[in-house]
């Protein structure tokens, strides 16, 4: 019996109330409940979290392998979406 048949789970931890869950790592477990328990032991041994999500890795749809691909290009030529794009006369406040 191996653990290879055990699904891979991605672990997301909320470090404290008011913050969103952040990806902490992954682990193998036979089911969701064991994944949660293992995640607690593996990723929150020092009170790093107040809430944990476990998600089967296969349930995640990712953008294309190359993280620099044209998928993200439409955002690259629109600097006017950033506040620093605009020139404001010196001395104008609260803007």
């Amino acid at each position, binding site marked *: *019996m*191996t*653990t*290879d*048949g*055990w*699904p*891979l789970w*991605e672990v997301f931890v909320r470090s404290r109330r008011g913050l969103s869950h952040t*990806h902490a*790592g*992954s*682990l*193998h477990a*036979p*089911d*969701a409940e*064991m994944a949660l328990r293992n995640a607690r*032991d*593996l990723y929150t*041994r*020092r009170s790093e979290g107040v809430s944990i999500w476990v998600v*089967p*890795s*296969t*349930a*995640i749809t*990712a953008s294309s*392998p*190359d*993280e*620099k691909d044209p998928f993200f290009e439409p955002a690259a030529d629109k600097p006017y979406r950033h506040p620093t794009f605009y020139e404001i006369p010196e001395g104008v406040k609260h803007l």
Partner: protein
Amino acid sequence: MTAVTAATTGTTGAPGVSDTAVAAEQAAYEAVFDAAVAADERIEPRDWMPEAYRASLVRQIAQHAHSEIIGMQPEANWITRAPSLRRKAILMAKVQDEAGHGLYLYSAAETLGTSRDELLDKLHSGRQKYSSIFNYPTLTWADVGAIGWLVDGAAITNQVPLCRCSYGPYARAMVRVCKEESFHQRQGYEALLALSNGTEAQHAMAQDAVNRWWWPSLMMFGPPDDESTHTAQAMAWKIKRHTNDELRQRFVDIAVPQAEALGLTLPDPDLRWNEERGHYDFGPIDWTEFWAVLKGNGPCNDQRLSKRRQAHEDGAWVREAAAAYAEKHTGQHGEGQA
């Protein structure tokens, strides 16, 4: 450690595509990889990477992961005989951390397309190594302190630069490991200090442990630079950031004043401050011992491996029961193969 585990991309010699087209595609991928490494960007699991880079990482991460879980044995040896409840609780937490470190690292290796079972198989059959340091026995309680101070201290010296390793999942695992190692080193130092300040017999016990662990700790940094087969390439790929000898020197420089504060000596008559170099000089390392232990002839090689195999076999029924339970209650078992 990433949302999606390894999938090799590119280099698909689809039928009908000419060799030159494949070669051009390969060169383009390689250029992107080289530029990312040169710019100190991180390589992520689904990026194209040279096969040799992948293999080198798998070898290094696997050896690192194996070291973490084999390293549980020499210390676990003392859990039942820890001198106080406080020390016992600390030691259990430390040994549990080592298991956790092993899991972070196996996860990182899995992102490269190598399963944990495959890696464990290679460990159990002796085809992959773990750090030689764990083939030495823990003869007294003071050894637990010496391991924390020296062995974990050497490990930290090695691991801090790995937090900037070019491979993202390995670097992220190391950040987590380094945070936790600091407790390991300090608890060891504190335990040794208590012994050193204790009775004459306790002081002697601490000194004896340091005498035995000092040289093997220096060997943990690996062979000298001119004999290290992997260093040059690993540094070009920014997997490693410093050579073995640089890190060894850094560790010696840190350890000498720490030993003084402990009131203990280090077993090296040649150890002295070199004003000109701004470093401590130290005596020659017995590399014949290093190679002998590496080849399997250390005091505990057989014991460590057979205990690991036995633990794995003894745990089989637990894994089977968990899988059977999952299948019965959720039908989840077998879904989502990595």
